């Protein structure tokens, strides 16, 4: 296989071709990992879905995702989050509501290994490209669909995002200030979490196909990822008959356990004191060795009883200190403590940088930016930074020309008839 800019070393998924119809986050998070691992991921953009034709400077500032808040002439190529999601992938446009678009899509599926989409369950049948159709074209195809609630059942047609899956699945019920309502995660956590399940499932199906020669359909429900990730709590409820209460940053078996203010604006240190040994060490560090025998704090039970008082005293100790100093001081004596890092501190974290976690991508239209690397660190076939995100439709010549054998004239004709293109379609609002 001669994909453009192909590197020397072979990733574990080298030679695997993925047709990626996924959108927003959950699906793209999955195919981003497959691409980091060396798969040839061909992202298909529907130009009606790319966004509006223009983005104002004002909107750009509100979102903060364009380089220097400047959307530029082709904002769709400068969206840094999309560019992170599309890194290592190839991009073509294809309007799947046209006969020609569907025909080309099917030809691509015939020479591919994986198809992934995260549309609602009605979309693919309506376009005439659901699993039974694609399986007939290519029996070895692995097809992954990942709608919010699954393809059957009373909520099958519900529209969802990670933000609504969060409360529905019970995940949000596990976060919240003491005694208050369930709290949504600040980052639509169910999205990437669902993408992770899909990634593992797809590779499991690839492993099976290496043995049987047959593909299969992976049918996901994103709402079930959330419930799987709280499975110990739903089982725990059945055993104990107790619905776990929301306890903020508290812990049922540890005290002190919380986020304490430190010097500066909105700077916090998370401190978790687990064992009695750690408690004794902690008392020594905060210059209150007498607390070990203090009737308010002597045992874990005492500390749980008098948590408010304990938290107040710990805050008094932390509030004029540098958060990193507190972390290092406590970690040095074996106490779990961590700075509550913001985006700036995270990307400048000495440990993550020492491990080379961040990858720099140099994008022709967006410039150079650092992104999270790949937590899957394989010793022999590592994940890699192969290429920056494609611009919209960048790989028409390779995919339509080289892979599908279309002539330059045929590709031009597709552009003229609007089946492919290089700009978003005007969307009605």
């Amino acid at each position, binding site marked *: 296989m001669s994909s453009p800019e192909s590197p020397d070393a072979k990733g574990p998924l080298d030679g695997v071709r993925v047709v990626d119809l996924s959108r927003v986050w959950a699906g793209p998070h999955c195919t981003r990992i497959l691409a980091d691992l060396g798969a040839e991921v061909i992202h298909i953009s529907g130009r009606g879905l790319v966004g509006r034709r223009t983005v104002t400077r004002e909107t750009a500032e509100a979102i903060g995702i364009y380089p220097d808040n400047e959307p530029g002439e082709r904002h769709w190529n400068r969206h840094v989050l999309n560019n992170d999601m599309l890194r290592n992938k190839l991009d073509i446009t294809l309007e799947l509501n046209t006969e020609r678009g569907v025909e080309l899509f099917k030809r691509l599926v015939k020479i591919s290994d994986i198809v992934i989409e995260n549309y609602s369950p009605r979309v693919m049948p309506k376009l005439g490209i659901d699993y039974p159709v694609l399986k007939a074209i290519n029996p070895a195809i692995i097809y992954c669909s*990942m709608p919010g609630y699954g393809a059957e059942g*009373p909520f099958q*047609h519900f529209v969802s995002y990670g933000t609504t899956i969060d409360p529905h699945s019970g995940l949000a019920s596990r976060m919240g200030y003491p005694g208050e309502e369930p709290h949504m995660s600040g*980052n639509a956590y169910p999205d990437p979490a669902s993408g992770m399940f899909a990634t593992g499932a797809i590779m499991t199906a690839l492993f099976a196909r290496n043995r049987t020669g047959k593909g299969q359909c992976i049918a996901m429900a994103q709402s079930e990822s959330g419930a799987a990730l709280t499975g110990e709590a739903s*089982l725990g*409820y059945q055993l104990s008959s107790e619905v776990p209460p929301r306890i903020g940053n508290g812990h049922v078996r540890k005290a002190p356990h919380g986020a304490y203010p430190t010097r500066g604006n909105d700077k916090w240190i998370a401190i*978790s004191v687990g064992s009695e040994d750690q408690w004794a060490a902690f008392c020594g560090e905060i210059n209150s060795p007498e607390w070990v025998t203090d009737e308010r704090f002597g045992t874990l039970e005492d500390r749980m009883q008098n948590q408010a008082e304990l938290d107040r005293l710990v805050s008094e100790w932390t509030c004029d200190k540098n958060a990193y100093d507190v972390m290092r001081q406590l970690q040095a004596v074996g106490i779990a403590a961590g700075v509550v890092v913001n985006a700036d501190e*995270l990307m400048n974290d000495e440990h993550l940088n020492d491990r080379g976690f961040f990858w720099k991508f140099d994008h022709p239209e967006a410039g150079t930016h650092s992104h999270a690397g790949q937590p*899957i660190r394989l010793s022999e076939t590592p994940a890699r930074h192969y290429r920056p995100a494609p611009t919209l439709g960048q790989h028409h010549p390779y995919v339509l020309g080289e892979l599908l054998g279309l002539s330059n004239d045929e590709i031009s004709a597709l552009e003229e008839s609007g089946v492919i293109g290089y700009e978003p379609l005007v969307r009605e609002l």
Partner: protein
Amino acid sequence: MATVSEPTQGALSELTVLDLSHHVAGAYCGKLLAAFGAEVIKVEAPEGGDVARQVGPFPNGKPDPESSALYLYLNMGKKGLTLDLISDEGAGVLKELVVKADVLIENFAPGVMESMGLDYTTLSAINPRLVMASISNFGQSGPYRDYRADTMVEMALSGQMYVNGDPDREPLTSAGYQPSYQAALYTYSGIMAALLARDRDGKGQYIDVSIQEAMASEHQFTLNGFTASGKIRMRAGNRYGSVHPTTILPCKASNGKPGLVSLGISDPTQYVLFLQLLDMSELLDDPRFANPTLCANNHEAFNALVHPWFMEHSAEEIVHALQDNRIPAAFVNEVNEVLEDPQYEYRGFWKAIEHPVAGTRRYAGLPYHLSEAPPVYDRANLLGEHTDEVLAGKLNYDGERLAQLREGGVI
């Protein structure tokens, strides 16, 4: 390159996995492999076993190592072997098992495997086809390598915690074990990738997964906003940052439940439809509420304006009224309510599984079905339940050898 053979009962049923995990991250990873038919051998210390067995919750609050919800859930479908890895003899038995294994998972603190003489260099010399995965709080290298952590500390150092909660209160962690779960999922994918590479290259490899890196990879919006424009993503309260109403709002209580409903409106078209449904389209003419982005800047005033309508309608009415118009809305469930939710019920998500100590309970399944290789669900192992079976079956140990190991406290 595919070779055709008889279909097997699970996609991974040819694999033998040595699961040296404790607590959450390694254990959940092993469970995912077991769900597709891999023979996963959970190796526990003879005294007390996995620490998760002490965590619970337990039936009636009474601790019992065989009825901890955490252990039961994370170790479904595994075989139980006890082995004292700290003893030379125990480590020797493990090395014999490594010869027969495809995958080894461990989540000890970095350096522990080496101290037992069971580091990757040693084990890969014994079995070059071995795929070994280590999960740790901060990875096997770097200045924080030996730092301690729990869920909250991982949420803090991965940047997740800073963006959870109210802007004028302390940041929030979550209960449960999300950082460990995410690391388990990355490791599962890493193991599958390594096995696919092994199909091609014929040799195994080592996988180093850091829980901090896993969790730092699960919120690209935070990192990319900063790298793009220097924006520091801030806590937004119980809503999603830049658009509104993507939030949880109070509504009319019904069926004895306090009224809460989740909205996920970010699309301008859905926003217009939503206000039409509430008969409040005039808000679109107010510059504060003209679209979801502007609405986010004025979310408190907006919530106050729509509050009366929400208090007149139950979550049931609101979710269906909105969804009938293809506007994202959802129920807000506690963990017990998820067990009663009709959608999970319909898809058969909960699996009733019998356990000799914990009884028959409903366990969360996997969020995906594979059409040709459906997952298999089985109960967690008892401590040391399969010790004899594994050692006799895999290593041909006879009764005498087993008795000798048992006497020495090795198994």
